[in-house]
């Protein structure tokens, strides 16, 4: 009889023991897969929350713009570049930036004016969903601004109120215009909250006299690797600077990498606990059989045969259990991809930290590697757990083994 056949019969004979050991391995596998998928999901959501509102995955700037934030360091005639990016399957949103003063009644505050193309912002980014009051722009509704939450509060204005904008225009003159508050943003991060005043690109041009330029073109391509998109963007715009969000926000990128490392460290600790559980169950199962193994040895089985037989049994059990556990874990993770955990009970309305806002719904994100990373070590652990008592049994004196209690 082949070791595999023998192992199968042994497992089938001791249903109770097989069930307990198998369940331990399967459950550990399931939990590991789900933990990995939830970790991945959390990191993905953090990246999303950074990139989806305004930053994008990659940005194009005129050389030197990021250091100086000068009105004059701009990409001229950005339309062609936007069209080229869109032809490559990227989504692109051109923006203009300028600084100045907003005033309402006796209140005045410094503001960062951001000229946007509403159709492209809406197609590419989700800032327009983050409105506490009012509506997002349409290209026809000129003369409106959308304010960051804290800027609106410090100017003491709401939707419909009148604002005066005073800036130094590109020709040095004092640009000034009247606007109405079209909408107020929700809290979406420190700098936007405090200073953002969005307006139509055409209104921006009228105020700042910049002409057909963009200070920033934000690109997104959610399903493509960041490096690939950065390289593509650099190739499309050789005269501009292409930077990924990780290069634009190195501190946040580092923090994310740190939390990824931490998460997988927790995963490893969790795995260790699960492996020790499996090891323990397997050890006990083999220990139970010392007498039986003694008998087998007494009737002529070689030590090698005993080792092969016991480890095959452990491996077979692990295969079946991880198959079930992995399938269950994958199914649960896939379910959590569309049925997120709701953390509202713990944190109220979501939390924001250093410019990133995280909502309370926690989605899983399953990758095939998660299943592999959970299953393969389980096999190793199971075999290792079977090996030790097997070696011990193989070296036993059959008489002692048979009288082993």
């Amino acid at each position, binding site marked *: 009889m082949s070791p595999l056949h023998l192992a199968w019969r042994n497992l089938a004979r001791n249903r109770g023991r097989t069930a307990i050991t198998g369940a331990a391995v399967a459950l550990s596998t399931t939990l590991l897969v789900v933990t990995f998928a939830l970790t991945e999901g959390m990191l993905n959501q953090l990246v999303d929350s950074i990139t989806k509102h305004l930053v994008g995955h990659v940005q194009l700037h005129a050389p030197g713009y990021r250091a100086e934030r000068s009105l*004059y360091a701009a990409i001229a005639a950005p339309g062609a570049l936007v069209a080229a990016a869109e032809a490559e399957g990227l989504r692109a949103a051109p923006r203009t930036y300028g600084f100045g*003063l907003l*005033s309402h009644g*006796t209140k*005045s*505050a*410094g503001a960062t004016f951001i000229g946007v193309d509403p159709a492209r912002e809406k197609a590419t980014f989700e800032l327009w969903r983050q409105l506490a009051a009012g509506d997002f722009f349409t290209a026809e509704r000129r003369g409106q601004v959308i304010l960051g939450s804290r800027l609106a509060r410090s100017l003491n204005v709401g939707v419909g109120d009148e604002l*005066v904008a*005073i800036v*130094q225009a*590109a*020709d*040095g*003159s*004092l640009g*000034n*215009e*009247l606007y109405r508050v079209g909408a107020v943003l929700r809290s979406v991060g420190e700098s936007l909250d405090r200073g953002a005043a969005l307006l139509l690109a055409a209104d921006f041009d009228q105020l700042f006299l910049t002409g057909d330029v963009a200070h920033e073109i934000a690109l997104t391509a959610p399903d493509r690797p960041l490096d690939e998109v950065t390289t593509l963007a650099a190739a499309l715009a050789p005269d501009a600077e292409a930077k990924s969000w990780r290069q634009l926000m190195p501190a946040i990128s580092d923090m994310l990498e740190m939390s990824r490392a931490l998460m997988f460290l927790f995963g490893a600790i969790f795995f260790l606990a699960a492996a020790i559980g499996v090891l323990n169950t397997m050890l006990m199962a083999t220990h139970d059989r010392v007498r039986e193994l003694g008998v087998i040895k007494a009737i002529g089985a070689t030590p090698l045969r005993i080792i092969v037989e016991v480890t095959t049994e452990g491996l077979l059990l692990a295969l079946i259990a991880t198959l079930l556990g992995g399938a269950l874990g994958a199914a649960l993770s896939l379910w959590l991809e569309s049925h997120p955990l709701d953390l509202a009970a713990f944190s109220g309305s979501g939390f924001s930290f250093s410019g990133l806002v995280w909502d309370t719904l926690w989605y899983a994100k399953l990758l095939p590697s998660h299943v592999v990373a959970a299953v393969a070590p389980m096999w190793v652990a199971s075999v290792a757990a079977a090996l030790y008592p097997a070696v011990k049994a193989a070296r036993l004196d059959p008489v002692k083994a048979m009288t082993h209690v």
Partner: protein
Amino acid sequence: MPTRTTTTVAALTLAALCAAPAAAAPSARELLDRFDDLYRGESAHGTMTMKVTTAHWTRELKIEFWSKGRERSLARILAPTKEKGTATLKVDNDMWNFLPKVDRVIKIPSSMMGDAWMGSHFTNDDLVKESRMADDFTFAISFTGARDGREVVEITCLPKPDAAVVWGKVVIELEAKSDLPLRVRYFDEDLAEARVMTFANVRAVGGRTMPTQMTIVPSDKPSESTVVTYDQIRFDLPLDDSLFSLRALQR
């Protein structure tokens, strides 16, 4: 580090000068006060031309101005047409701009006081400041003698610890025989030179003899400048307080 050396030298010089009271008249305080009052008087009214040159544009403004004491001043743009009527009112430490295009008055928040006034290299703060140099700074004559072919008196001013002053040091060079300013160098808090103001075109206007052209050059952008030329100026004429009101600003 040159700045540190400068500081040390300046401090030593100051210490030496403070220890031995200057015998020669006029005193540093008198010179400073005279410098402070040069363009002010009880009241003043005049017109000036301000030419601003930056890397990206050049523009010239004609400005009519009124002032009364140190507390009140009003400046209104006469040209170019696009900005005609734009006006700035200053009363005590507050400042407002009137924008005829949108027909609104806006108050300049204190956070913007360090920003450029009308796109020039002057800050709003330069216009608002009403305290006397002698009150905000400890000062001493740090040099007398010939420099660049002229007899000059140099006064080095260091801010008092509690004074609301943005500069780390101000060095004023006066012409020795007339006590008129030649050059003022402003240093930032790290004692790096931030901007230099030079005075030229000394002539008699409004009953005083004074430099009628001031050029300010930011030290980090030596190709940029703001040149202010007094076209006419009259001093000590009766001006009503109501001229310096928000109502008058909008007229």
